[in-house]
């Protein structure tokens, strides 16, 4: 019996049993759509995220830092690649996904609309932005869709070096001259709240969450992930003598967690809707690379076709 409701019940039973859903399995249209949206936006974020950090490659202050930053940004590129490939298992092409990014139909993590203004920003981004991403990605290792989960496992393995190198930059700055300490504190001041916003709206305000949780695409709620991030990061800041820009931040013994101040959701919405410093630049940069590269891709295709023809001729 192959009616849709029977299939849906079977599908949900699989999910409930913590079985993985694989590309050729039957899945509800909504599940497929939700995954394409989430996975492709995750991929876009990795690629767009190369820009604020890539911004400092040519100006890294030492050869060692330059090397580390290059390796890190290269990893982000690879992550984008893993995620695009995982998304393609759902029957969509990379060209379609890139088209959606360029048209604005698909989004990327809003955090990357902020500018990387100083070398210390590279430290803050690694420590906080990658730190937040790790908290999210660890939970996604249990996501129900097989290719997505496997991509997360691979990404998580590579991600811990990212956070560590960022934190080490901040540590070095905080042990340095007054000017360097000031750089570090300024970067923390500017990247702290946007990093908290990376986890998305409060659970109560999040429309998608319920369905996403039922299908086990999402495993842990936004607020829970955000709290986890704050709890692990506050001691890290204290350890290097930096002050988190939140007057309401304090340990709550009863809850066993840090209490923190209100997030400015107006800023979050404004930046998502195009009023961040870098929204236009990020897309323009991506489009330019894509457009400038068109002749190169045509060249690759033409050469490959030519070789295939030659192979046929010499075989025949």
């Amino acid at each position, binding site marked *: 019996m192959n009616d849709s409701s029977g299939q849906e019940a079977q599908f949900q039973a699989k999910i409930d049993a913590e079985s993985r859903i694989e590309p050729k399995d039957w899945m509800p249209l909504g599940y497929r759509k939700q995954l394409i949206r989430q996975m492709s936006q995750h991929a876009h974020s990795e690629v767009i995220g190369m820009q604020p950090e890539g911004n400092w490659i040519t100006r890294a202050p030492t050869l060692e830092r330059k090397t580390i930053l290059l390796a890190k940004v290269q990893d982000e590129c690879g992550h984008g690649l893993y995620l695009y490939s995982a998304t393609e298992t759902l029957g969509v092409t990379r060209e379609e996904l890139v088209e959606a990014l360029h048209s604005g139909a698909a989004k990327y993590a809003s955090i990357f609309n902020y500018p990387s203004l100083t070398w210390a920003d590279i430290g803050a981004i690694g420590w906080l932005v990658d730190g937040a991403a790790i908290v999210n990605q660890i939970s996604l290792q249990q996501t129900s869709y097989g290719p997505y989960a496997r991509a997360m496992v691979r990404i998580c393995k590579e991600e811990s070096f990212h956070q560590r190198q960022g934190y080490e930059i901040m540590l070095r700055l905080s042990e340095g001259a007054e*000017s360097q300490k000031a750089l570090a504190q300024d970067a923390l001041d500017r990247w702290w709240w946007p990093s908290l916003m990376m986890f998305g709206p409060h659970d109560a305000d999040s429309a998608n969450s319920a369905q996403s949780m039922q299908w086990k695409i999402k495993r842990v709620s936004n607020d829970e992930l955000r709290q986890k991030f704050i709890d692990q990061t506050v001691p890290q800041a204290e350890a290097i003598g930096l002050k988190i820009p939140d007057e309401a931040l304090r340990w709550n013994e009863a809850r066993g967690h840090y209490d923190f101040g209100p997030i400015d959701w107006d800023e979050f919405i404004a930046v998502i809707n195009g009023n961040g410093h870098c929204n236009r630049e990020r897309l323009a940069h991506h489009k330019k690379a894509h457009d400038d590269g068109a002749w190169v*891709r045509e060249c690759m295709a033409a050469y490959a076709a030519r070789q295939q023809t030659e192979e046929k001729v010499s075989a025949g």
Partner: protein
Amino acid sequence: MQQALVTYAVRLADDALIYGQRVSEWCSNAPTLEEDLALVNVTLDYIGRARMFYEYASSYSGLSEDTYAFTRDGRDFTNLLICELPNGDFANTLVRQYLLDEYEALFLGVLSSSSDDTLALIAQKSLKETTYHLRRSHEWVLRLGMGTDESHARACTALDALWGYTPEIFAMDDIESGLAAENIAPDRLALLGPWRENVARTLQSAGLPVPADSWQVEGGRRGIHTEHLGHLLAEMQVMQRTYPGLQW
């Protein structure tokens, strides 16, 4: 002798650093994600190579790799001019890569047997990377030459723009001649013939013309650079200039 060795190591380091810095500019700008990864791999190999050569020089001079990289002015850099030229388009970048890879494969091949153990070791390690670089760039020259009319035209333009910078690669000054006499440094002149043969063969396979030897520019080893280097260094050195003498 020691001074000559230091000068030589710094020269090879400068080549690698300046060239690596240039290729790094492709990060997030490449035609595909896969190509972006490949280009950054090449960059990392070159920066790594530079660091090895600076470290060797440092063992004699006491100057750190970052002192070499971030505090010298343009007139004190001794890299080949071809390394400091802007990337231009993808064809220019890969054609330059290819021309350099053919030379590096030959050069490092000989340097791997240097009577100086450290240089030999650095060369052996670098040669493995270069073997891969050459495989890649060789394929790209074929692709560009035989791909589309546009890729072919861009490759021709690149060859014409770069050709006059290649004689400098094979020039020997007193320092290198002295080191070559000790079997420390390769004789570049001896590499020119094989290089020209290899390049000619590849260009012919790719359907690309070998440019005429109608012009040439040199001066890098004497610190007489193109106007491009100053801007490259201004960008590369900005942090150390703004915040001198600190740890990062």
